[in-house]
């Protein structure tokens, strides 16, 4: 490690070896300090040159040649337009999604910042829950790390694109080689991992990648993501190998390291014009691809690459067994038990007449905003459904479907992103076609999620425990059950019997309360102290 460090510093900083090796004597130390300052200034100057150059290009000042090759052209203006359009469109879509999430009921998620951040570090950044299943965890880790590291190069692409520079980060020197080299290796690994994902999904037939909610658009979407991922990597390799060959043919050195592209150059033509064109094609394909992908995210489960982070941050901190208490009911019950109890009036909101809110959830806007955030973070991985006891034993319930339905319903009722293909279920989800058409009943409950699904849940929390992005399908299930019971009195009959037993006998079974203490009759215990003596 130290050796490597001194190697890097010595090749990049002229005084680097001194800095590592001889810091003990104070004289050497001051030399070292002086040299460090010099180096810093030199580096600073390079950076300044880059920035000044950019400034000059855009504000029409005369350009002086720098070491970094520059060809400012119409391409760069075009790029500026494409980038602005790409990011602008994304922001427009993101705002719609934000609005969708905010139709949810208020829930205070403030406070506990450190605990929440720590959770985000472990579960989102650290992929903690993914590692319950090793194979997909490793495959995903490759794609995930690849994405983050390769995106450093996207910064370069953006700068090059805007200012006409070529490989602007080359001023990093050996670090640039490390970066490009790592990117190429990661890029190759990503292609392999994505191929494995594709195989697992389409050939191996893993159970959690099936189910009525994973047909049509969600199924296609899962594969589109994988294809785009490969296409982006292909563009990266095309750009690098064409650039490399171009430099080789011109007898020049290309800064950076290209452990994969160096083997691909043989596949390319020998003609410099063609190579130049190919390098441009690769470059444009990579960045335009990324911008397209960015705008595809809001329509896709791949949105999780952004939403997983806030979703984990805002996940519940209570014990999983704790269900929310409905405050309005608490006031009612307290008022019933104690006539002097005064129901606190909620602070009147501006102008808006406090609409009488229903108990539980009939539609998406009755769920808490965090439940709606969940819907946009779901990776559709099916870990929840694969451990659900109801689903495992062939019941209709699939927690993943509840989450996916929430998203579909939100986009149907409110804003939709560029692509909106809601899941339409047929017979297999036991939807009454009449009910689906009936506008009145076309809500999340019944329009998408049937009572049969809701009543199959054992509230076991297996889905909550399994979800790698801390989604909680159980909360939504309970909210909809509340609506069925409290607003529609539509519980299964046997549950109504249980309710009335509790009301009348204080127990869920039809036993007489006076028998409650019978268990203690004729109870004997061995008196061990008596036998010892």
């Amino acid at each position, binding site marked *: 490690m130290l050796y490597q460090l001194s190697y890097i510093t010595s090749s990049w900083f002229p005084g680097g070896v001194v800095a590592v090796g001889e810091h003990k004597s104070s004289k050497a130390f001051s030399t070292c300090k002086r040299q460090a300052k010099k180096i810093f200034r030199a580096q600073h100057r390079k950076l300044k040159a880059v920035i000044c150059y950019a400034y000059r290009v855009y504000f029409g000042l005369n350009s002086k040649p720098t070491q970094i090759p520059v060809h400012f052209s119409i391409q760069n203006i075009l790029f500026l337009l494409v980038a602005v359009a790409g990011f602008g469109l994304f922001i427009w879509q993101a705002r719609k999604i934000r609005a969708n999430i905010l139709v949810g009921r208020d829930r205070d998620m403030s406070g506990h910042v450190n605990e929440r951040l720590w959770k985000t570090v472990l579960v989102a950044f650290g992929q903690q829950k993914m590692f319950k299943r090793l194979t997909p965890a490793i495959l995903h880790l490759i794609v995930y790390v690849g994405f983050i590291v390769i995106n450093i190069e996207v910064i370069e692409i953006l700068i090059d694109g805007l200012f006409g520079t070529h490989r602007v980060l080359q001023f990093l020197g050996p670090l640039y080689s490390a970066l490009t080299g790592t990117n190429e290796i990661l890029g190759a690994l990503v292609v392999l991992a994505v191929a494995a994902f594709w195989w697992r999904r389409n050939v191996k037939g893993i159970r959690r990648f099936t189910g009525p909610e994973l047909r049509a658009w969600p199924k296609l979407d899962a594969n589109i993501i994988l294809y785009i991922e490969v296409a982006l990597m292909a563009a990266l390799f095309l750009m690098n190998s064409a650039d490399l060959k171009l430099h080789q043919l011109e007898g020049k050195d290309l800064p950076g390291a290209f452990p994969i592209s160096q083997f691909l150059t043989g596949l390319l033509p020998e003609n410099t014009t063609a190579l130049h064109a190919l390098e441009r094609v690769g470059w444009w394909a990579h960045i335009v691809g990324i911008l397209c992908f960015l705008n595809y995210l809001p329509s896709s489960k791949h949105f999780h690459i952004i939403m997983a982070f806030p979703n984990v941050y805002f996940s519940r901190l209570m*014990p999983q067994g704790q269900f929310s208490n409905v405050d309005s*009911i608490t006031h009612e019950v*307290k008022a019933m038990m104690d006539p002097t109890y005064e129901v606190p009036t909620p602070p009147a909101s501006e102008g808006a007449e406090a609409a009488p809110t229903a108990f539980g959830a009939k539609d998406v806007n009755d769920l808490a905003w965090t439940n709606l955030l969940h819907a946009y973070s779901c990776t559709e991985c099916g870990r929840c459904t694969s451990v659900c*006891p109801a689903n495992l034993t062939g019941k209709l319930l699939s927690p993943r479907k509840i989450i996916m339905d929430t998203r579909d319903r939100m986009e149907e009722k409110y804003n939709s992103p560029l692509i909106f293909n809601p899941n339409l279920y047929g017979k297999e989800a036991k939807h009454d076609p009449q009910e689906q058409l009936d506008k009145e009943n076309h809500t999340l409950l019944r329009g998408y999620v049937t009572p049969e699904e809701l009543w199959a849940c*054992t509230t076991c929390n*297996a889905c909550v425990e399994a979800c790698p992005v801390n989604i909680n399908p159980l909360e939504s299930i309970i909210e909809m059950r509340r609506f069925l019971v409290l607003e529609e009195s539509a519980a299964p009959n046997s549950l109504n019997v249980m*309710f009335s037993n509790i*009301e009348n006998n204080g127990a*869920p079974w039809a036993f007489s309360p006076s028998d409650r203490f019978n268990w203690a009759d004729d109870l004997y215990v061995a008196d061990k102290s008596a036998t010892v003596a």
Partner: protein
Amino acid sequence: MAEQTAKRQVSVPMMADLAARGETPEVLFWVGCAGAFDDRYKRVTRAFVRILEHVGVNYAVLGMEETCTGDPAKRAGNEFLFQMQAMQNITTLNGYGIKKVVTACPHCFNTIKNEYPALGGEYEVIHHSTFLQQLINEGRVKAEGGESFKGRRITFHDSCYLGRANNIYEAPRAVLEVLDADLLEMKRCKTNGLCCGAGGAQMWKEPEPGKKDVNIERAEEALATLDGDADVLLNLQGVESTAPVLPAGSNRGGSVIAVACPFCMTMMADGVKNKEREQDVQVFDLAELIASAEGLNA
């Protein structure tokens, strides 16, 4: 060995009597509806009381003043009924100035511990698995002088409301360890534990149409674990963990599925019965195992 163990009759201390004498117990034993009414689980309640009596814990029960915690109503979506029950119980408990509650039911445990505080009921709530673990750690229960479990196979079925709901995985296992038995883990255990199928008010209704009942799926897993049946274990869904190390040889008989919840008890016992294995596999609660290992049954 004493041939004839002396026995004494237990008169279970009632909270109302203690209060009349101006006493407060160290801990209130919350029996729960299943513990009070269900014939099978009454035996668990009695076993737990025997342990309390044997160790000399200063405890009391509410007797007829106890009512349902409201858990089944809440899980079924009847928040109104839940809160009515909760308020009633909180009034009783607060009226007696109760500080600490122990219960053998994970559902009562979860409800009183997690959902009562917001309604004004704040107590130290502890499940009997943790309570037994403490007694063992303090050396007050040694699991000696009674039935021997040495060499018998025991597998523990995690209750959802103990495990995932409240992160109690180790206490019940620590309790089983003193039995010196052959403890086997099911493939779907601890955080991956499979529900018995009774939670969320399923106990009181017919299951939705499907291929199989949840308790049968779970009983099959438990039996396969005790039997060392590799074929069944390899085909279990829902975990991608590596195959468990299987014990050599087949089930020796006298094996036990240990539970720590009245509903798990019913579901697992039904499952074993459905598989016609009652003659060699029994379902016991932790308290029953400890009471018989300690030789407290009389």
